[in-house]
């Protein structure tokens, strides 16, 4: 069965016809060519498909595309574009690069989005809070140490004043 949905993806209104069985992750990847969102397990465990739905991170393999009609979805592509208004990497991404907080890069877009969610909620997390904050995103390469280090650095060096450039 097909259905037509209207939603906003990466600041752009769009209308699409989808098979009702289509997962949000497949819709984003296959129909909108937003391949920065990855599919690793399809059971909601690995977090490679993490995107933002109406401002909160979700696992896009656990949601049907048909269910997000009327919503706002932001993927790594849109978030990066927003963050790069000034032309630089977002502080989270810059810290990931500096600390080589990635190897194969497959989990990275989802991990970055989970980190921004964590820092929005807790601007100065402890190490334990960082580890719990990214526990929904599996990384098979790094063993997480470099990711934790990157987040610790952002949490201690980035200004989060309301007038400044936030981490959202």
């Amino acid at each position: 069965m097909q259905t037509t949905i209207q939603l906003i993806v990466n600041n752009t209104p769009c209308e699409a016809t989808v098979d009702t069985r289509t997962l949000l992750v497949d819709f984003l990847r296959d129909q909108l060519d937003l391949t920065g969102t990855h599919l690793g397990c399809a059971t909601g465990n690995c977090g490679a498909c993490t995107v933002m739905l109406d401002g909160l991170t979700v696992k896009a393999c656990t949601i049907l595309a048909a269910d997000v009609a009327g919503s706002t979805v932001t993927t790594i592509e849109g978030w990066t574009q927003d963050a790069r208004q000034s032309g630089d990497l977002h502080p989270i991404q810059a810290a990931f690069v500096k600390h080589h907080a990635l190897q194969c890069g497959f989990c990275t877009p989802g991990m970055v989005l989970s980190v921004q969610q964590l820092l929005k909620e807790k601007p100065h997390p402890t190490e334990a809070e960082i580890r719990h904050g990214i526990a929904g995103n599996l990384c098979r390469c790094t063993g997480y140490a470099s990711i934790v280090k990157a987040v610790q650095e952002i949490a201690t060096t980035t200004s989060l004043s309301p007038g400044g450039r936030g981490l959202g």
Partner: protein
Amino acid sequence: MAYIGSAVSGILDTKLVAGKGQYTADVSLPDMGHMAVVRSPYAHARILSIDTSAARQHPGVRIVATGAEIKQWSKPIPHTLNPSAFGGKTADIYCLAIDRVHYVGTPVAAVVADTRHAATEAANLIEVEYADLPVVIDAERALEPDSPLLYPEWETNELMHVRFQGGDVERAFADADHILDDTLRLHRHTATPLEPRAALAHYDDRAERLTLWVSTQAPHPLRTTLANTLQMDENDIQVIQPQVGGAFGVKIPTYQEDPLACLLSKRTGKPVKWIEERTEHLMAGGHAREQTLKFSVACKADGTVTGLKVRIIGDVGALAAVGGWGMSYVASFVVPGPYKIPNCEVDLSIVVTNKGPWNAYRGFGKEAASFLMDRVMDRVADTVQMDRAAVRLKNFVPKDEFPYVQISGATLDSGDYVKALQDVMDKAGYHTFAEEQQRLRAQGRYIGMGVGFELTPEGGCIPDSFIGGYEGATVRVSPSGQVTVLTGVTSPGSGNETGIAQIVADALGVPLSTVRVVQGDTQACPYGLGNWSSRSLFMGGSASLYAAREVHHKVLRVAASMLEAVPEDLNCEQGRIRVKGQADREVAFNDVAEYVHKRAFDHHAFDMEPGLESTRYFRMGNIHHVPDDKGRINTYPSYPYAACVAVVEVDVETGVITLLRYVTVHDCGTVINPLLVEGQFQGAVAQGLGGLIYEQLSYDDNGQLQTGTFMDYTLPTAVEVPSVEIHHQEVPSPYTPLGTKGAGESGVSSPFGTIVSAVENALAPFGVKIHDTPLTPQRVWRMIQTAKNGNNGGAKA
């Protein structure tokens, strides 16, 4: 040396962190079809019939194939390592099962349709009639004379029997002060990279040419095996490796789905895409580790180990073409690891059972040898009442005895094992730990410290295979001075592209930003064997260095002519070529490059071969395939190692183990990039920890996989994996131009022995002895209960 040794960030990281990496599943072609694979729900059965009529009529279906068609259309897939070349049995493996299935997940049919939904629907309409056969899932049972046989024509389930022997073992046992026996069991688990396997095959009917985008570690060997399987000319096949989302060994070989997608593209004349589901991966993507390790050790009262007998039974699942059984062979090859035990024998049976086939996984059997030897040393220490580390220090191969030949022929290249262990003990506070332990025990907390040592032979080179000890690279300088490095090695996320760029930038004296590394395209890159066994940097990097040096030599020759100097008086840094000590006499690297390309007939370049390009191959000098006087060959050229200390806390009420600290002193020779090496080591420890405590491929008695998704096959998260404290001990390899040894695999083996030792130490008040893995809370809790009840023989879950 501007870049070598510095912690340069990964050159791909900026792209990957923005989600711009293009993985195989991200590549799409117009009008491509989607492939779904029908897999056996039985662990052992004969295929009586396959009815595909409903599937063929399903809307959107382009083609349906079963074993019968596959046998007409293609040849068997060449084995990555053919057991028959090692005196073992063998079998033909086609893309789909022909008449018999040997494990749950065996591919038996395939469908290509316009959409993934349609392909899955049609696959569900295929009716396969099976006659089920008796199942054997236990390797020791499989060796019994009345066991069901997977391959009746073999008249046994023993795929291969191997024996290594050296010295006078019986004499050593006769003269021993103590003889100890034990049986260890490692459980089945797997690499399971986050990116599933994936392939996009496009047979272009007009060009009569096949292109395969595939998540692989070894594009060139894959092309060769495809040509063989598909009966095509290699020249008509191009294999392209897009960004790979982790591999850890499982993406080395040619899988059945690779030629299958190619065949179905050829038959339909349209592209075919296949993306593996996680459940398919856990069933059929390749397993590892499951081995029984029996040992008998002879030692003196002072802790000197004088003799060792080892019996290994490798439960390698069903036979596939991917060569995973080789891991059990390597386990036996590595014994006795870093120890000097001249009187030693290893007896190995590699056994097939009705479980998923083994496939390469980081560690490749070395983790089994490492676990075995760590347990041997702990047992000896406990028996002679010596410190566990002291027994290791007493038995290590001394640093002045390299190269040291073990009984298998493994020729240890270099190192200082004693210093590595002493250093890690100092850094971990080994000598003062007991006080802290006592203090916490008084509070009812059980912490423990363990030591371990892993020897990780790297760069494997097996005769008559594509597992080889050489690599090739091309270095090319464009007219604008841009440098392209084309390598035969690949990077599935391991970072060697950055390390190779550092080596080449230094060799040429140019900025790193001007160096581009191109990998994973058989049309562009020199023939090479790909990424595995930590070989990419020490072999691929060495080939790149040779090629860069050759180009550098030409650049300096032209520059010298321009500057009226001799090449020996020049140096080149950051793209500026200067006469040493004379800052005003310089020429830009880019200007020289342009001159060579545009003015080949002018005098500065006239007496030189035109072009700024070199392809060189590097071969490890210490591999020998001609047997020595004892019949031994050396198949590994590089022997990095790591001495480790772990601190754990065990909750004795629940059996939950928390790894509090993991400290290592690691030698991989010259470190090209500490950021990358440490990242690899940390990730490897996480996998070793995951394998030891959290991950298990569990089968029921009917051969049904019970842990087929990430809901029940549990990978460690950031909460479970502590940050490893990594220290480097750089003992350069005598056999590589920069002193590099293998890096990347190390770290995965030591957690088994080190953490097990720490857990035993934590639970010493109960007298728990650990023989089997995994250390799940339930199993640890039972071990504690069993020991409390007076039996310390270890618990079976």
